């Protein structure tokens, strides 16, 4: 017990050390920290030795130093070491930390690539690197991710584990978050030790070397994987084969672009996410545990000794980890299960005791190797799940067994079934409203009353504890996972909570157990020559029914239950939640060990010690009051209200803008791009914009403005309409008419020669098709629509603060009112004015111009509105502005302080002349320019000041936190 406790403390202190580093790095040079850490250990050891010699036991001080202080500094040192990019042989030191650099790299593929239908992510350990044609240098630390896109069937055989390759090209640092709340790919890859990426579309610049470095076990495992994949392809039809391949072989990307039924809105992988069963595709703890249980069951049935079969099981688990790609989450689970099995085999501990030590050792070993994993979602979710199961399940088990009897039993299960009924009927409007809190409070009161009723009447049946043991544990475990992981971590990481998961997992987890085990048995049977494949066919035909049922039921849960947005919790709120949870689940233990409350009350009553009696009676109440106050302080959002908050998102080409007004209205301009080619889908609204809107805590959109029907700005609008409650939508033309027009009639609305010459082009047809989808969505949801023309106001609000009057107005400069609508060129140009006045005198004014897609004719017509954009502060260029000559005339009048645009890499290379003209123009007028393709720009107005913040300040600069007031 002593050593176990010390192990827990050591690990916690080590984790705290790593954690502190994330906040305080860089604290000191790594070599100094290493010396300090070594010194602490030596001092602790010396004092421990002296203490033992002198007193016959080791005193508290050396124990404190060795088990508290030393691991804390060890964590700090190792984390600093991981962050240290200046050490000799580090790839960033060799490339001098350049964001992009031409290089020739010699290295080998150190793990199995991640395969998609037409691309592979190949992880390369570089051995030598030559940058900018200089002499090559040895690389000790740092890896490269090679993204290889290939045509169907033309995948080079040598891009596999163990092969040595040489390649030449431009290394690029991975993207950091380019939008608020966006995914920081650079940090994610750094957690895997990868610092650069490189892209290839063919293998012209890749040369295989003859050498192959293969660990025999790896080679064997990967051969086995290919055989198993063949078995699946032979014995299960698509897409069930892709699902089985995902859960048994780690080929999770086989389901990309696949839908359960043709015409479904969501793909199968999205169904899984919405149903809260997405974890089945991430091969990790659950799958490893299923296999562990399977092998243990199998070997124990055949009478093998408990001291032998754990090691054979561990060997199989290692092979499984290699087969499934050796992902960090799988490795964690394998290390954890290996420790658990070893302890269980050789110690007197039961499974639970072994699990506690196993988790701790696994966390320690994994973080010793790579401390940066502590900040990865996959690490916290993986360990969070296991810790929830181990720590919270017994507590809930006791509560359920003690209280769920008779009336309480019925009340509890009635509420459990009422909750999904309310969710299904009222969807997100129930979940995201006061009704949810009323329901929870009401349930608490009802349960309390039922407990009191049960105490009086003592109805003996039914009893939760009399249910089958496996069901009791399963129900307690599901609640434990929700409380310990899903609720807080879904809110913290994703800003969305899959409510369906609370119910879907009762089906999903047993089903996965069947799917994985039968799939594995079938794969093993298929190794028998000649007849094996037929045994596998029989088994997988049976398995097929369960696979199909899993997909169908996930689809049902996904489409029946809501998938609501929730407030994205801050880090301090998550910590507070876990502290409270920790206290609650330990109340019985704390009470017993530290504070026998009733005993002291009786004692002080007997001794007539009134002062002490009052203290002991009121301290718990005071503590409770303090707790409530602290909760209120943390829960109340800080007043960060700005008078105006505008974000210009970073996308491929689209002009998408989000506005938060001083009265809290949420206005979204445009939706981004949606494209679909065969099975490949790219939805900017889903992947980019919604992450940022979730980060901002947006749950509805007051005004949704679409400037035009171009693919870049408009095509993802159905996603926004499907996911958010939109109160009113604004279009430059009458969109509802599109559903009554044929494609030819739609096309002939314009006289624009370029459009008519490209009548068959996909981007033209796309506008028509997406227009019809949006029209249907608007009609279905009863969203009011306003057609906006030049001079029309979209929004105006005024607020008086003391003697200052603040006004925000948004209106259209274009398109002009005409008899006949042109769906291609009657596009919106918006003007936003923010004005502050005192005693009728304007003293502060900021102006924004936002352009949709504009052609040259429409841009020329803008010049008639010169007065509206003279000396504007921020000008958002129309899409494809490089080819829009009249824009320069507009800009000469506008002379914006900031000029924002999207410039694709393609344009940057192709049309350098045009680009340089713009740069000279900007320099002449002292205009700041921002390429939104590189990162978002955000403007906030507060206290009569406009503050701009951006990720990058121009096209070629490195990441700069650039804040400027003007």
């Amino acid at each position, binding site marked *: 017990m002593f050593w176990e406790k010390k192990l827990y403390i050591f690990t916690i202190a080590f984790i705290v050390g790593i954690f502190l580093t994330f906040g305080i790095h860089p604290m000191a040079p790594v070599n100094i920290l290493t010396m300090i850490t070594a010194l602490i250990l030596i001092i602790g050891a010396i004092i421990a030795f002296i203490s033992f010699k002198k007193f016959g036991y080791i005193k508290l001080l050396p124990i404190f130093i060795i088990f508290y202080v030393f691991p804390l500094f060890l964590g700090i040192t190792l984390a600093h070491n991981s962050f240290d990019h200046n050490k000799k042989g580090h790839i960033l030191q060799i490339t001098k930390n350049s964001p992009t650099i031409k290089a020739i790299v010699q290295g080998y593929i150190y793990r199995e690539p991640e395969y998609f239908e037409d691309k592979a992510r190949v992880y390369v350990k570089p051995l030598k690197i030559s940058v900018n044609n200089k002499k090559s240098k040895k690389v000790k630390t740092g890896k490269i991710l090679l993204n290889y896109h290939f045509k169907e069937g033309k995948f080079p055989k040598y891009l596999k584990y163990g092969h040595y390759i040489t390649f030449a090209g431009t290394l690029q640092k991975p993207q950091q978050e380019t939008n608020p709340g966006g995914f920081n790919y650079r940090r994610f890859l750094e957690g895997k030790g990868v610092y650069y990426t490189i892209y290839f579309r063919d293998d012209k610049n890749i040369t295989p070397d003859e050498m192959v470095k293969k660990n025999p076990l790896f080679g064997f495992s990967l051969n086995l994987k290919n055989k198993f994949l*063949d078995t699946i392809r032979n014995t299960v039809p698509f897409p069930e084969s892709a699902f089985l391949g995902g859960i048994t072989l780690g*080929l999770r990307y086989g389901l990309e672009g696949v839908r359960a039924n043709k015409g479904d809105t969501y793909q199968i992988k999205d169904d899984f996410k919405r149903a809260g069963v997405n974890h089945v595709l991430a091969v990790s703890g659950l799958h490893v545990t299923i296999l562990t249980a399977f092998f243990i069951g199998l070997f124990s049935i055949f009478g093998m000794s408990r001291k032998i079969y754990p090691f054979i099981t561990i060997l199989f688990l290692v092979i499984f980890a290699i087969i499934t790609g050796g992902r960090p989450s799988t490795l964690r689970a394998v290390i954890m299960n290996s420790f658990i099995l070893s302890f269980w085999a050789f110690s007197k501990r039961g499974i639970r005791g072994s699990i506690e030590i196993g988790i701790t050792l696994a966390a320690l070993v994994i973080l010793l190797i790579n401390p940066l994993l502590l900040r990865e979602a996959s690490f916290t979710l993986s360990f969070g799940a296991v810790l929830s199961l181990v720590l919270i399940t017994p507590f809930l088990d006791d509560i359920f067994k003690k209280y769920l009897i008779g009336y309480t039993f019925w009340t509890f299960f009635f509420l459990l079934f009422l909750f999904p009924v309310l969710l299904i009927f009222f969807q997100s409007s129930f979940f995201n409203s006061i009704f949810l809190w009323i329901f929870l409070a009401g349930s608490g009161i009802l349960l309390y009353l039922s407990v009191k009723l049960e105490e009086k009447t003592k109805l003996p049946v039914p009893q939760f504890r009399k249910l089958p043991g496996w069901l009791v544990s399963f129900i307690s475990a599901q609640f434990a996972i929700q409380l310990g992981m899903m609720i807080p971590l879904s809110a913290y990481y994703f800003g969305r909570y899959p409510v369906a998961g609370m119910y879907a997992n009762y089906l999903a987890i047993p089903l996965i157990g069947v799917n994985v085990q039968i799939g594995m048995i079938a794969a093993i049977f298929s190794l028998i020559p000649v007849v094996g494949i037929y045994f596998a066919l029989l088994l997988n035909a049976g398995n097929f029914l369960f696979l199909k049922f899993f997909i169908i039921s996930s689809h049902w849960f996904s489409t029946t239950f809501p998938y609501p947005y929730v407030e994205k919790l801050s880090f301090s709120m998550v910590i507070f939640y876990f502290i409270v949870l920790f206290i609650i689940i330990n109340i019985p233990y704390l009470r017993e060990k530290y504070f026998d409350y009733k005993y002291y009350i009786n004692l002080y009553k007997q001794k007539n010690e009134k002062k002490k009696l009052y203290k002991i009676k009121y301290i718990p109440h005071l503590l409770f009051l303090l707790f409530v106050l602290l909760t209120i302080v943390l829960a109340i959002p800080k007043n960060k209200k700005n008078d105006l908050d505008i974000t210009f998102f970073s996308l491929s080409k689209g002009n998408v803008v989000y506005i938060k007004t001083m009265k809290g209205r949420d206005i979204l301009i445009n939706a981004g791009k949606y494209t679909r080619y065969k099975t490949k889908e790219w939805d900017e609204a889903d992947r980019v914009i919604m992450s940022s809107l979730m980060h901002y805590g947006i749950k509805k959109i007051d005004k949704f403005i679409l400037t035009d029907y171009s693919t870049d700005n408009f095509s993802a609008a159905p996603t926004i309409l499907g996911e958010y409650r939109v109160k009113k939508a604004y279009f430059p033309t009458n969109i509802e008419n599109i559903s009554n027009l044929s494609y030819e009639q739609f096309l002939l609305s314009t006289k624009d020669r370029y459009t008519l010459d490209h009548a068959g082009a996909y981007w033209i047809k796309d506008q028509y098709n997406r227009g019809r989808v949006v029209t249907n969505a608007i009609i279905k949801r009863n969203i009011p629509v306003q057609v906006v023309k030049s001079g029309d106001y979209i929004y105006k609000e005024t607020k008086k603060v003391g003697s200052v009057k603040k006004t925000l107005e948004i209106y259209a400069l274009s398109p002009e009112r005409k008899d006949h609508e042109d769906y291609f060129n009657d596009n919106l140009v918006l003007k936003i004015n923010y004005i502050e006045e005192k005693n009728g005198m304007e003293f502060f004014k900021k102006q924004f111009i936002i352009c949709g897609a504009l052609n040259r004719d429409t841009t020329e017509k803008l010049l008639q509105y010169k007065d509206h954009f003279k000396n504007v502060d921020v000008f958002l260029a129309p899409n494809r502005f490089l080819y829009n000559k009249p824009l320069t005339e507009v800009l000469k009048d506008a002379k914006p302080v900031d000029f924002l645009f999207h410039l694709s890499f393609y344009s940057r290379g192709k049309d350098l002349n045009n680009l340089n003209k713009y740069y000279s123009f900007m320099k002449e007028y002292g205009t700041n320019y921002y390429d939104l393709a590189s990162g978002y720009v955000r403007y906030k107005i507060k206290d009569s000041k406009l503050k701009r913040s951006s990720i990058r300040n121009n096209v070629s600069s490195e990441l700069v936190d650039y804040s400027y007031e003007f």
Partner: protein
Amino acid sequence: MKLDKKTKMVLVIVLIFLMGLLVLIFNKDYRIEKNLKSNAHYYEFLGK
């Protein structure tokens, strides 16, 4: 009648085999050739 673990495991596997047999009997499309055809684009570049 309480069954031991070994018997339970054998029964489950036999049950799965029987279910598979029923699928093969009633679903004429469930054959190796047709499965391979439907999986034509599923990681064809991996495997044998």
